């Protein structure tokens, strides 16, 4: 039977799955034993815990985002979920934020404490309601911050969503997929549980492949080399599924005569602390990277193409870790800009003749600082670059952000909301959609497949690598 569009999506009724948590408990994982990875305890007073944590963790920007909403509803027009489901009012960002705001009002606000019904203030009744909250904050919002930038009052709904995720993660009330990645990152230091052996073997294999492809002897992918110009940190996806990205980077760095290294430990710049709202996990993962840079005396940290990895390592990580930034920390896109400006690599845009459009990652364009920079590079390495509309700060999410790729229970809703992204992509007429985010690569891949678009996803490094003319000379 066809589902009525004005009903809330089934995603908000997803039950709390705890199989992985039960296994983690049975295996007595170190992170569980040390209390870093939290498990759900149905016997505990989770409501009280939730309220206590809320009281401890609210900071001033969050308090104002809770207090300042005037319920104008303008945010509905900036959210891809709300736009894709125009007859479903529960997709309005203010409604989603109100599910936590009502608890804040009941717990902290004067009016909400005295006459709660007047402002819809309410405590959650039981763990079922906390599970509903879990489905709202993990399943119906990609925390893309588009509504934040479109809110006349400056309410940061995405920050409220992340804050709520953090509280629920402390109680173990999290989607199983998010729990699994949190576990892997706590246990192994990287989100895909890549072992050191696997990591080093893949790097050696990538180097051998690159050597045979470019016919350049001595091309290097150094690991743990001290005193380099920069420490390069990557997404585990580059080891596990997409080593091409690392190969492209190594090739470019080689032609730029760069002195660089990967670390043996602390190489994962992705950070599920951003998605799960767990600042302690965020600090742990970011600190691994910062300590690797300090240990190897690198002069800067360069972050491979990843939206949330960039945001976590360049911006949030230092704040989570609680120490001031001491090293320049940049996206590899800025490294490419430097190479091109200094003439350290030569490129020919004719090598990329297909029409290319660029998808801005939310974590970079709205929570970071890079909008023009990737375009500056693409205009130099592509013959036919065209913008999608809207773009930059106003771009729509790939729909895979914020951990949604790890949560199959929310996938149907995510793909329904992807209608907006699909329309945007289709209108460009491009054959390639370029993004500087591994998460967006998968998110856009899903959109392209689901909506049967004639497009391929590429990354900036791939296009630059293809456009290199140094290869003609030296290869």
């Amino acid at each position, binding site marked *: 039977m066809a589902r009525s569009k004005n009903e809330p999506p089934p995603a908000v009724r997803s039950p709390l799955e705890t199989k992985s948590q039960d296994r983690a408990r049975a295996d007595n994982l170190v992170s569980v034993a040390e209390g870093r990875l939290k498990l759900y305890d149905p016997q505990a007073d989770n409501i009280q815990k939730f309220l206590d944590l809320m009281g401890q963790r609210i*900071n001033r*920007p969050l308090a104002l985002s809770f207090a300042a909403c005037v*319920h104008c509803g303008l945010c509905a027009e900036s959210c891809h979920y709300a736009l894709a489901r125009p007859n479903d009012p529960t997709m309005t960002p203010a409604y989603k934020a109100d599910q936590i705001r009502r608890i804040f009002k009941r717990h902290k606000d004067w009016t909400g404490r005295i006459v709660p019904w007047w*402002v819809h203030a309410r405590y959650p009744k039981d763990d079922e309601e906390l599970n509903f909250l879990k489905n709202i904050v993990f399943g119906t919002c990609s925390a893309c911050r588009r509504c934040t930038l479109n809110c006349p009052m*400056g309410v940061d709904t995405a920050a409220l969503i992340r804050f709520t995720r953090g509280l629920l993660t402390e109680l173990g009330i999290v989607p199983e997929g998010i729990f699994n990645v949190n576990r892997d990152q706590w246990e192994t230091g990287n989100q895909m549980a890549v072992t050191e052996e696997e990591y080093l073997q893949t790097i050696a294999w990538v180097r051998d492949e690159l050597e045979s492809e470019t016919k350049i002897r001595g091309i290097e992918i150094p690991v743990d080399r001290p005193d380099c110009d920069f420490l390069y940190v990557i997404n585990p996806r580059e080891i596990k599924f997409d080593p091409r990205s690392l190969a492209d980077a190594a090739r470019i760095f080689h032609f730029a005569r760069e002195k660089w290294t990967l670390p043996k430990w602390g190489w994962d710049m992705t950070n599920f602390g951003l998605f799960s709202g767990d600042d302690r996990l965020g600090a742990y993962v970011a600190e691994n990277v910062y300590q690797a840079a300090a240990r190897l005396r690198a002069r800067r940290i360069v972050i491979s193409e990843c939206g949330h990895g960039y945001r976590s390592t*360049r911006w949030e990580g230092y*704040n989570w870790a609680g120490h001031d930034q001491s090293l320049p920390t940049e996206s590899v896109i800025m490294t490419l800009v430097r190479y091109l400006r200094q003439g350290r690599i030569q490129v020919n845009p004719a090598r990329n003749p297909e029409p290319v459009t660029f998808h801005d990652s939310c974590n970079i364009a709205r929570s970071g600082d890079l909008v*023009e920079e990737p375009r*500056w590079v693409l205009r130099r390495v592509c013959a036919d670059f065209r913008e999608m509309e*809207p773009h930059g700060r106003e771009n729509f999410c790939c729909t895979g952000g914020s951990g949604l790729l790890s949560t199959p229970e929310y996938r149907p809703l995510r793909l329904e909301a992807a209608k907006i992204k699909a329309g945007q992509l289709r209108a460009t007429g491009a054959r390639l959609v370029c993004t500087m985010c591994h998460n967006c690569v998968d998110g856009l891949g899903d959109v392209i497949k689901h909506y049967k678009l004639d497009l391929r996803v590429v990354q900036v490094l791939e296009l630059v690598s293809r456009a290199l003319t140094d290869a003609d000379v030296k290869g």
Partner: protein
Amino acid sequence: MSPLLRLLENEIQLCALSFLVIVYVFRILWILRFRPYRERTQPAGSERRGITYSLLNISMPWSMESVRMNRGFYLQFVIFHLGVAAAIAATFIIPYSPEVFRVRAVVLLFQVIISAALVVGLMRLSRRLRNPAVRLISTPDDYFSLLLMIVYFGAAILAVPNRYSSAEWPLILFFGLTAFFLVYVPFSKISHYLYYPFARYLLGKTLGHRGVLPPKGAKEGTDFGPLEK
């Protein structure tokens, strides 16, 4: 002028205003009790520029897509708040500078602005009732505050001629509502204007530091490349 009206226009207004100020002082202290956010990263932009842009955002309807695509909504916002400003101004003009409203053109100007605001208030109420998304998020406070504003605008239209010699009840209604407003506002959504500068300041500070605000256009990418970070 009856003693009741005199009392309403003067002592009661001052008491209510003092109450509002005191409660707002506590509100601000309440906000400041929440710990501030400390940014530990090196900046990619300017906090000062971000804050300025964020605070002036409301006067730049082109700066936000939500407003750019809803020009009518923005116009309503401007008219509504002009009406609020005019009505508030009237509460001071009537008791302290009554000669201003002896100029018929001024009275008419105030009545036109406040009438337009009243119409906008009715449109906003209709939107709140008819738009399912807005209806779902609306609380009794949202409806009551809006209704109160509509009634207040109506009272202000009748009060600004300030002809207490012919009929006092419009002035009694207006000043009675003003006193109620001053007491009710700090506990209602209407106090959003108190939070506004704080919320926008903090958002502007964070996003200014990161170089997100003010937005950089393609024009800033020169032939020599984007700005150094």
